[in-house]
């Protein structure tokens, strides 16, 4: 399966970015091949509805789970409707977060983790 981890940088050793819609980078990890790929987040500087845009993008990329810090109500609504699981409160390096996820150490959330955010 394909998962996405929000990242502050472009390396496996970069730290997880606690923001979802405005994260600096997205890391896509394929659990079958073990491959990591990084992409800069083109939505980060948007005016509004960034969480919505980012979530739509996750659906387009056929991501099945998102590992991040916080997810607001608009983003959660979209991810949930697209059938994407959300694992909040991830931290440490991207690599460590992936390992923790694979070991089943993260709990998915059934709702947004916080109120609407604007930056």
């Amino acid at each position, binding site marked *: 399966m394909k998962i996405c981890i929000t990242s502050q940088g472009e390396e496996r050793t970069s730290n997880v970015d606690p923001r979802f819609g405005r994260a600096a980078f997205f890391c896509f990890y394929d659990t079958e091949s073990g491959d990591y790929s990084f992409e800069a987040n083109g939505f980060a500087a*948007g*005016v*509004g*509805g*960034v969480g*919505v*845009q980012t*979530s*739509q993008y996750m*659906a387009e990329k056929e991501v099945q789970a998102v590992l991040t810090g916080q997810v607001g109500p*608009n983003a959660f*609504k*979209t991810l949930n*409707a*697209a059938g994407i699981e959300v694992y909040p409160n991830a931290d440490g390096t991207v690599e460590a977060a992936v390992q923790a996820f694979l070991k089943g150490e993260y709990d998915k959330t059934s709702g947004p983790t916080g109120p*609407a955010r604007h930056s």
Partner: protein
Amino acid sequence: MTIAVASGKGGTGKTTVAVGVARALEQDVQLLDCDVEEPNSHLFLQLESRESGDFSIPVPRIDNDKCTACGLCSSFCEYNALARLKDRVLVFDNLCHGCGGCRIVCPEDAITEELRPIGKLVSAQVPGVHLLYGDLNSGEVLAPPLIRAVKRRGASEANAMEAGGPGYTAPGAGGPLIIDSPPGTTCPMVTAVKDSDFCLLVTENTPFGLHDLEMAVQVLDDLDMPMGVVINRSDIGHSDVEEFCRRKSIPVLLRIPYSRKIAEFYARGESIVDADSEYRLRFQEMYRRIESIVAEGRAG
């Protein structure tokens, strides 16, 4: 005649002046409080009657039976208020500006509109003053539509009176219209003051007051609007506001020296004309000067 009361910097005394003028004039007056994020005028008037209605903007509703998830609505939307997923489209009311474009663009006619309340439009009365104000709900960001609604309501009540409509007597309609504008110089302020006959800028003789006055003057120049300045707490500070006004040929129409009594009355929510009855005359005089400036402008 419509007079807007604005200020570059907040807290200089805009509402004090707007309410003061409305109370001081002998004719019946309409006061429109367009500071919809923080409407304050009503706090300084002992309101006798108050009627409040919802102000709403239209947001899209999608008929899932007709929707094919083609995504045209979502790509049209500038505000990311529509998210296209594989088999349906999600609507985000809180991001929608109510432009109506999605409904037009949908090839399946799957979108209708529903009204979403974003604030209140309130109508109230005291002897001699008919107050209209907008109160934007907490967390909402779209001030300009509500400001326009307050102004439209004010104008339609004035028109009904002038046209001698069927027994319609909107109190204050037909008399002067005073607009209490939001502070600052961005979109909400411009929306509130535009199309007025005259704009009063309330300032103070401090570096902040002068700096923000300069910006407000620039906005009014761009709108080609006649203006005048009121200097509040005029005896405090030494920032050459008067010099600036002289240079730009802007009349200083009133100076309000600092008075502890006025400050105390303000703190309690009582108007300057109650604290010092002399201001009743001074505001009336200022209004007459504004009338003649506007008349000269029309003739010239």
